């Protein structure tokens, strides 16, 4: 039942960013802290999902098979984010119809036909594309307002501005979501392809007086402190 918390995506001028932390939780246990939860699919697409990781691995394997089959055709056309999103939405909806839902909410990002693509699919097969930003899981409550505000104030933002916005959102998620983590990765989808960054740590602030041991200690042992 290893699961990941919310993932977020934000479009910018020239591409789209997809970010997730690198933690798989086992209930309340932060069990696997160094897992890449973003997957590249073919040349143009990156996907990430919140929810059950085993189901996400199943989705990833199915998509890999789909990509190989398409590449073997060698017909000069390859599956892009739009096709991956469409296929995935049917996979999830049909699983739901069989009462075997894939317990994930997936974000599909990529760059195709000169435009960035951002799509959403959830475990009951609800699917749509987004013009600005999207988040899954708890991040849809925590990060979405922030991302929307950033996008509305500057829809044609640069990659650096977008990364700043994403990092701010991830920091907020780490502060407020018990199942989130400070180590994260960002995938950048542009005309040049997909680039998934190495894991890095968020800058978080803990030096508040309220967190001092003097303030938080429960008892004073005799002979100490």
């Amino acid at each position, binding site marked *: 039942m290893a699961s990941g918390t919310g993932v977020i995506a934000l479009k910018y001028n020239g591409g789209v960013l997809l970010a997730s932390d690198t933690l798989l939780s086992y209930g309340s246990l932060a069990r696997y802290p160094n897992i890449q939860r973003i997957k590249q699919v073919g040349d143009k697409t990156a996907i990430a999902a919140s929810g059950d990781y085993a189901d996400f691995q199943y989705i990833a394997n199915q998509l890999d098979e789909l990509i190989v*089959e398409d590449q073997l055709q060698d017909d000069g056309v390859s599956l892009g984010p739009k096709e991956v999103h469409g296929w995935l939405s049917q996979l999830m909806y049909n699983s739901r119809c069989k009462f075997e839902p894939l317990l994930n909410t997936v974000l599909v990002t990529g760059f195709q036909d000169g435009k960035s693509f951002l799509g959403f699919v959830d475990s009951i097969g609800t699917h749509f594309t987004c013009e600005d930003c999207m988040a899954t899981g708890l991040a849809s409550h925590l990060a979405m307002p922030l991302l929307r505000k950033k996008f509305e104030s500057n829809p044609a933002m640069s990659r650096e501005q977008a990364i700043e916005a994403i990092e701010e959102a991830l920091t907020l998620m780490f502060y407020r979501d018990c199942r989130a983590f400070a180590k994260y990765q960002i995938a950048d989808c542009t005309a040049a392809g997909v680039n998934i960054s190495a894991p890095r740590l968020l800058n978080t602030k803990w030096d508040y007086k309220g967190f001092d041991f003097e303030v938080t200690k429960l008892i004073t042992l005799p002979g100490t402190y």
Partner: protein
Amino acid sequence: MSSIGTGYDLDTDTFSPDGRIFQVEYATKAVDNSGTAIGLLCRDGVVVGVEKTLISRMLVPGSNRRSMAVDIHAGLALTGLTADARQVISRARAECSEYKNSFGVPIEGRVLADRLAMYYHMFTLYWSLRPFGCSALVASYGDDGPQLFMIDPSGSSWGYYGCAIGKGRQVAKTELEKLDLGKLSCVEAVKAIAKIIHLVHDPTKDKIWELEMSWVCDASNRRFQPVPQDLLAQAEEEAKKQVGDSEKTKTTAMSE
């Protein structure tokens, strides 16, 4: 020339008194009468080339492929009956996919060759089936390194450093033996194969033809794909020069 197999050559499940299966031998004749295919195992990959005889000048260049990928890291080049070749490719793709589903890793060259050999061989056991009229060069580049195998209609599979099948194989084999097999780079192999195929090609018999080459190597990121157009064009230019002026004046339809 072989002896006449009267009476013992009607079904593939019949031996002749001298221990031959004539149907398999006749299938091999279908291969031997087709365009030459050459495979070369290099230190950084595998290169395969096929002399594609065309039936019409109106065919789109590069269509009717003879060398096709069966997995990301592996591909086949076949010579003989094209329709039979498509069946073999289809089966090879299924084998690669099944293997990955069962074992979680891409299929190794020798395992794929073995599976295809078993498939070919199966068709030599039953009266109701006929053997495949094509031979396959299996090229792969996985964690087991570059691999080249050849499977003939009888279902025998052998690993090679350099292999030639089809009508020009005798001359091609002689030329291949002159090369530093196993130590060439893929780019050198592309030029060598282009030269050999131009050498063995008979312009009086097959007026219109096309050279198709594919490789799986470090330069292609271990993916089986057609050799880049510019490298192929350059290799053919050099080949035509080396093989002599008499080749240049004949009409050939090249892929542009």
